[in-house]
């Protein structure tokens, strides 16, 4: 938490205003009942009319001042704390964008989101509220108690004695409450997962007529949540009841002792009224102290969770070299690769492959043989654990990262579309692309359907926009990669969701692009392989054969196994 103080630095003036207005507010709040006491004891009791007006006006002035101070504090505070929160969120986002794939494959975006929203809000609340009032409430409680003790010490003592159990109670309550709330949250989450599953799989459920079965399961989970929620209700009912009972019991005692005091002349009626008013004004600061302490604890936890991210450093740092006139000579030299959380299970080992400028090589291998990992090494989404990947003889790790990723463009099998306009999605890698460039890329990828969207290129696509079919998404991803005019084009099984006809058209157009671009293509269909000049067979993480398609088909049984069509079909054809 202390480390986040740098975010507060620009708002030092605001913090001073917040603190001083809050303190002044307390002084005013305490003085109002004291003036009222003067009024009751003086003019009202003694039957003088003279001082009523000035004292009454003083109460009025103090009342207005109190309201003004509250307004000022909140006004300043809203701006300051929101700026702090926004700045932290911005930095968090920037840091996350820079962290490598190894980090992101370990963290789900939901987990990251809860840090960017829930945790930051909890820190914001601490800065805007808990931090301030922790100090102020303690001061207020102390000050009022002192005033009360001075006024009439036996009563003051009664009040001081009731404060302790309230603080203790509210702290204990808050802790228990956090526990049961977390359980409720978990159970709500479980229920949400079930609702989600039932919604997504509705057609499967209907097909098998299992609606009742699924509903019963859901209902059982809802019943558990109901029970836990009732536990929470009972807990907070008990707490709020006690919270009201304790001050009221204090009122009973104060009234009893105070009235006796007044009767015996130890206390004036005005003092008694002021006393009760002041005492009741303590209820909130005292009871909230427990809540504030718990909030601070929560903010500490949040800060720790934020720092967990800020403390992670990217291990993929760009070099300084650039290639003036890239030819696109891509080489894998004795490349080893393993994911950092499974270093003893290498995904790739001793991979050697030389792709000459302008040449296109297809990588073929069974599921899980490491094809996708191989392609991810080129733009340094992951780094090799042994050997090197070079472009035009330069190790990719020595290249400037932005420059490298300009040289290499990848069209992924599972194309990521963002909830933005089609244009924004297409120009991901080249924001300055002209309309003509875009048209050309759309033609190559047979993605002309974009023009027929309701608002053409301006149509929002992705989750929050127009839904596209798998084949359409892949064609967009392909257009995106082609548009960035890379020296090396990587196609990671980009055509798998296309129908036969479209695939043929795309391939024809791609051939033209690939004439002077170096291509690395992951394929599991013979038709795609034919795009390539040569084929590399990846088996168990290493390249076992390189050659032309026909040649491998004829000589390597494992290759035939992977690419030849259904055996019964072969019979039918022959």
């Amino acid at each position, binding site marked *: 938490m202390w480390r986040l103080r740098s975010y507060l630095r620009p708002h030092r003036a605001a913090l001073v205003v917040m603190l001083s207005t809050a303190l002044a507010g307390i002084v005013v709040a305490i003085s109002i009942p004291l003036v009222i006491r003067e009024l009751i004891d003086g003019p009202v009791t003694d039957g003088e009319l003279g001082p009523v007006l000035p004292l009454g006006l003083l109460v009025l002035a103090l009342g207005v001042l109190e309201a003004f101070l509250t307004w000022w504090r909140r006004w300043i505070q809203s701006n300051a704390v*929101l700026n702090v929160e926004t700045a932290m969120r911005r930095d968090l986002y920037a840091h996350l964008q820079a962290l490598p794939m190894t980090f992101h494959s370990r963290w789900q975006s939901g987990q990251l989101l809860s840090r960017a929203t829930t945790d930051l809000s909890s820190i914001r609340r601490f800065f805007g509220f808990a931090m301030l009032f922790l100090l102020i409430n303690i001061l207020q409680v102390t000050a009022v108690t002192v005033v009360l003790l001075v006024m009439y010490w036996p009563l003051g003592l009664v009040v001081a004695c009731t404060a302790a159990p309230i603080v203790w109670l509210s702290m204990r309550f808050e802790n228990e409450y956090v526990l049961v709330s977390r359980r409720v949250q978990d159970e709500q989450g479980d229920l949400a997962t079930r609702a989600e599953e039932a919604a997504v799989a509705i057609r499967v459920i209907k097909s098998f*007529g299992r609606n009742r079965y699924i509903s019963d399961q859901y209902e059982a989970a809802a019943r558990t949540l109901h029970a836990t929620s009732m536990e929470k209700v009972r807990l907070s009912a008990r707490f709020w009841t006690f919270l009201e009972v304790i001050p009221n019991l204090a*009122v009973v005692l104060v009234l009893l002792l105070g009235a*006796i005091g007044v*009767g015996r002349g130890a206390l004036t009626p005005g003092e008694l009224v002021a006393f009760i008013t002041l005492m009741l004004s303590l209820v909130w600061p005292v009871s909230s102290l427990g809540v504030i302490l718990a909030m601070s604890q929560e903010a500490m936890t949040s800060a720790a969770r934020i720092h967990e991210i800020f403390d992670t450093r990217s291990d993929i740092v760009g070099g300084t070299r650039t290639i003036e006139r890239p030819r696109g000579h891509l080489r894998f030299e004795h490349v080893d690769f393993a994911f950092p959380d499974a270093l003893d299970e290498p995904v790739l080992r001793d991979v050697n492959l030389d792709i000459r400028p302008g040449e296109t090589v297809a990588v073929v291998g069974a599921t899980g043989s490491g094809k996708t990992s191989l392609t991810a090494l080129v733009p340094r989404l992951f780094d090799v654990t042994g050997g090197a990947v070079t472009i035009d003889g330069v190790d990719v790790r020595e290249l400037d990262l932005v420059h490298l990723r300009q040289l290499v463009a990848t069209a992924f099998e599972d194309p990521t579309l963002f909830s933005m306009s089609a244009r*924004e999605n297409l120009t991901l*890698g080249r924001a300055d692309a002209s309309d003509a460039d875009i048209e050309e890329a759309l033609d190559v990828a047979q993605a002309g359907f974009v023009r027929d969207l309701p608002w053409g290129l301006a149509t929002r696509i992705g989750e929050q926009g127009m839904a596209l079919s798998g084949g359409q998404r892949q064609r967009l991803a392909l257009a995106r990669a082609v548009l960035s005019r890379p020296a090396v084009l990587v196609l990671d099984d980009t055509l798998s969701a296309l129908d036969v006809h479209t695939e043929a058209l795309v391939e024809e157009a791609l051939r033209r692009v690939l004439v002077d671009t170096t291509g690395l293509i992951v394929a599991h269909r013979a038709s795609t392989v034919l795009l390539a000049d040569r084929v590399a067979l990846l088996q168990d993480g290493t390249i076992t054969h390189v050659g032309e398609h026909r040649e491998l088909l004829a000589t390597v049984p494992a290759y035939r196994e992977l690419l030849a069509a259904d055996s019964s079909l072969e019979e039918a054809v022959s």
Partner: protein
Amino acid sequence: MTPTGKSAETEWRGIAKSDEDERIERIERKFVGGSGTLLRELLRPYKFAIWVLIAIVLVENAARLSIPYLVKEGIDTGIPPIRDDNNLEPLFVIVGIVLLATVTQAVARNFFLVRSGKVGQDVLFEVRRRVFRHFQALSPAFHDDYTSGRVISRQTSDVDAIYEMLETGFDGLVTAALTLVGTAGLLLFLDVELGLVALCCGPFLFWLTNWFRKSSASSYRVTREKVALVIVHFVESMGGIRAVQAFRREPRNQEIFDDVNDQYRAANLVAFRLVAWFMPGIRLIGNVTIAVVLLYGGYLAYHGEVTVGVLAAFLLYLRQFFEPMMEISQFYNTFQSASAALDKLAGVLREEPGVPEPTRPAALPDARGELRFDGVDFAYVEDRRVLDDLDLRVPAGQTLAIVGTTGAGKTTVAKLATRFYDPTDGRVLLDDIDLRDLTSDVLRRAVVMVTQENYLFSGTIADNIRFGRPDATMAEVEAATRALGAHDFITALPDGYDTVVANQGGRLSAGQRQLVAFARAFLADPAVLILDEATSSLDVPSERLVQQALRTVLAGRTAVIIAHRLSTVEIADRVIVMEHGRIVEDGAPEDLISAGHGRYSDLHQAWLDSLA
């Protein structure tokens, strides 16, 4: 937000808001105000409990409100006897009553909180149960329009909004309203003149609260919108970080994020500043009222028209008067969103299932599996016919493949055969019984569809296979997987059949998922199997495995296969080619190929070429 900011945003976000969205919103808006009816209906079983609660809350508030009055009595009638002849008795009586009031209040309050909480939770449970069952009962036609995202948010964020209201706002609202009315009454009772002076603050309070209510409703909406933008952009950037980094998208992303982040900040600032005006505003009115009451009360006291005790009671009551006002404002947004949520849920609950259960169901003890389409017309949208007078008879045991271009009506045939939809005209018959005369339990036992989704539920592999027949023994499950050639890969998994399938089957390959889906259908053992086949994402060895399993699954039952790739057609007894909702070719695959130059034989040739 500046106008330029808006246009810049539109530029990257693009335009959405399709016709379909508007239609859905109509469904949701159809029953605006439905929340009231729904709420009444939900609360009906608790009529008695609610009356008890109302009585309790009245007692509680009476006890609470009596305390300042009793303090006044203590000062006015308790003190003089002590002063005069040291007689403590009147004071003891009053203090005793205060104590009694305190205890009464505590007991009543606890009872109220627990009981009202119980009613709230019961209602919430009922809402969850009803909404879930209703979504399950609604026909797939409804689910085609109403996306799963919407279904989910009805059951999560909307239900949560109601939960939130029950948890935070309900009790506060009741207490605040009663305090307001009760206090006003008591003030007038204590002293009419002074009471009227104090209540002069009423119009100001009303005006301020009303202003706050309106402005915070709109600012709340804006804040929700802005935070949604932040969340979407954040989640999508992190989820798609591979594409972001590969295409050097970081600077542009940061630009966009800074923009939405700042818009969110600005919206929040508006909301915070509303509160910054409202809270001190209430306090100002309160403090001014106190000062006026003091001035006027002091004047009256001077003339002996009010006592010190009355003045003290007034001050205490006024404190109670203003505090709940500030609290109500905190809960206002909760109420707002809960009421909107109830409206939406009410709308959904009034949707009728498109395929109703029969009133007089026909019996079908043992389905043979003969499927017949008899003059079937079908249109999803009026006047846009997808099927046109379709006649088709699939004899029991036949494997029929349907091929054709996208939009030819292949999938519609499957959806009618499984009664996901009912035909617009004509009949679909199973063993000569109209599907509309069969209960869904009977129909689903006889006809099962395996879709291309291959959805795996969270749970073990065995649970997933048993999904169609939960009472199947382990031996039966294994028999099914062995028959399909899936037994080996399942036993090779870390926990075999008990391996937990995480995240929609993430650990299994696409081919393996399909085998599990087949095993599920095989175990359910329906007379008719409808297969929406899509093996595009499988590599050749997996596809081969799946094709082999398919032969086993289809043996001895009627099957309709929607063929997207032609590899499946090879195992069909009969192929129909569809175009524009009509059958254009029909025959055994070999016959159609040897006939040459038909549509099917063209498709087949193109496919052979693609295999290279």
